């Protein structure tokens, strides 16, 4: 596949406050680099991420959406990430069913201690989305940047 090096994907990352957002902070504290394409939205728990938000991101021009939460069993709210896992699995499966590139979406478990993992995950996700190129199948043409 041809990789367009000039393509700078817009990546939205939803991070739970207790684990992944702290993990992202740690990756900053440890000065671990990942591309500036990634912009983080803080949510209390990964289970706060409504499928509507994910579709909305694609509509408004995101090229990839990643959700990060506490590892299963470690949810600050006991069970939130378990619900996230089912919801997001089904949603991603549906997007795939509609022919939307499955690698534009990802769910990762990143703990507060995993700054290095956070950076690694973001690096690999940005690479993946860069390979896919701009989101065309789930975009709203009205939002395309002129």
């Amino acid at each position, binding site marked *: 596949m041809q990789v367009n090096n000039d393509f700078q994907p817009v990546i939205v990352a939803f991070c739970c406050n207790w684990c992944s957002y702290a993990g992202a902070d740690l*990756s900053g504290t440890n000065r671990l*680099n990942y591309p500036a394409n990634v912009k983080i*939205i803080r*949510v*209390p728990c990964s*289970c706060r991420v409504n499928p509507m938000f994910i579709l909305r991101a694609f509509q*408004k021009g995101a090229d990839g959406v990643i959700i990060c939460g506490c590892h299963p069993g470690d949810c600050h709210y006991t*069970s939130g990430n378990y619900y996230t896992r089912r919801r997001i699995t089904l949603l991603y499966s549906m997007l795939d069913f509609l022919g939307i590139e499955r690698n534009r979406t990802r769910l990762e478990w990143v703990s507060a201690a995993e700054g290095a993992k956070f950076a690694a995950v973001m690096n690999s996700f940005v690479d993946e989305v860069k390979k896919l190129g701009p989101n065309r199948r789930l975009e709203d043409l009205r939002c395309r940047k002129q």
Partner: protein
Amino acid sequence: MQRIGVFVCHCGTNIAATVDVKAVAEALSHEPGVVISQDYQYMCSESGQDLVKNAIKEHKLTGVVVCSCSPRMHENTFRKAAASVGLNPYLVEIANIREQCSWIHKDIASATDKAVILGKAAVAKVHLNAPLTAGESPVVKRALVIGGGIAGIQTALDIAEAGFDVDIVEKEPTIGGKMAQIDKTFPTLDCAACILTPKMVEAAQNEHITIHSFSEVSDVKGFVGNFTVTIKKKARYVDETKCTGCGLCTEKCPMKKVPNEFNMGLDNRTAVYIPFAQAVPKVATIDPNYCMMLKNGKCGICSKVCSVGAIDYKQTDRFIEQKYGAIVVATGFNPIKPDKYNEFAYSICPDVVTSLELERLMNAAGPNGGTLLRPSDKTHPHTIVFVQCVGSRCDDEKGKPYCSKICCMYTAKHAMLIREKYPDTEVYVFYIDVRTPGKNFDEFYRRAVEQYGVHYIKGMVGKVMPRSDGKIDVQASDLLSNEQLHINADMVVLATAIEPDKTARPLATMLTTQMDTNDFFTEAHPKLRPVESATAGIILSGACQGPKDIPETVAQASAAAAKAIGLLVKNSITCNPCVAHSDELMCNGCSSCEKVCPYGAITYQDKEFRMPDRTTAVRRVASVNPAVCQGCGACTVACPSGAMDLNGFSNSQIMAEVDAICK
């Protein structure tokens, strides 16, 4: 129209070196609603905060965005600053341009662009922020301690000391727990009973402490400050209020072949029993599995001999309901049963015992009156082999992955006590590592080796084989000399791993607290909040949170008490205002939200509504108890109509952030 102030922090050079802060402030000044956009060296400093405060006053700001370090760092700082000049603290948003921008990017242009976008997202969010007021909920001035071991007793005593009522729920007929079974304690070698029993008595006599022995927690409802707990008082067939603990019934009971669990089944007790002499409460209990009267109605001797008429064969389980402000979990531990380890022959050889069994064998109140004899033939053992880490630090499913922490020290204690009392006995200890961190611990271990001549061998015991002559062949490897060893032992003592009590898991579910994969309760923060669970009002004491020795347990027990007292002294507690709420006009009462709520914060009620077509209708709608809700948001996604939303992280706020980022 909103009047938003944007404050961009340099954080010295932490931000300013990679992000063009002036450009960020300039770019954000053009955002709709932004009336002032400034940058400053250290926004979190006194003068930086003053800058924010003055701007709020001068420009009559309705919202504040601080572009700085992580909100986990200074969100509270700026919220307090805003509140101090009359702006609702929840109208402050932080754009994290340090940890999530300047510290991870090297290119100034792209880092600046990103900082601007993060700032725009925060501005977009703050446009939709609503002033939130933290609710208050009253605190019931009573604590519950679940578990009456040394942890529970100490916690209860400390809470009572502060003047608060506290109840202990203990599932066994007596409090005391594991410590009551222990003979001597390390590293001082003083008698466990001598230091424990006075505390048990103190607890029993304290006017603020109520002990529910032979009882279990069967239901927990409510939330911090206001838990409603149902306690099941199991039928003991003896009226606690009448029994004087004289023990006559236990002497006369004809059913004398009941394995005595207090002595680890090494001797027998009667069907009606008092676990041990210093039991608290000193009240008899009838074991319905063995009592002839309860089983087939034939006997009734105890009832006849009881002079106070305390025996009541018709007693049933009773349930009492009580309100509490705080709950301390002190459910403790148990040694694992080593019967899965065939190589140690525990199941087939009575002279292979666990360390706790050894405690009883050596205890003056134990089956042999304190003389160490082999269980099989009651002879004096001359060679004893201790095997360390049985089931601890174990990779396979038979054992536990963690270090049980206390075994190295108690084995040193055992070895020392045996060598002291029976100098003709050779003691071998097989270990992987000897771990003795702790005050006077390593000195203690060295005394065992140097002063008492205990043979410590780094190596693994491969096989324990009982021989026909009654001896035990212990095959082991000495890793240091790289030799295979055969020891002709009389007894083998297994330092078995400890695990959380089996009642802890269902309890955790009732309390909605988290557990790790080993069923130890998870603390709110491993370093900074080690005695609280993540669930507000649920506090952890002792080995239920992780393996601990007695001094550590007592220390944590007092710490837990301090946390409970800290809660109980308050008349009310401030709730997190970022909680879910349901729009009753949109709610269709389907119960999806209720099912995913981990706290039981959502209830349903039938309410009468005036419908748009001017009729009235009774509809089932959800309502959220803001004192119970912790604000995870699971319900907001389960709700198809969007009737459920979350303060501080509303659907529209998050979508505004998404929009701003994707622009």
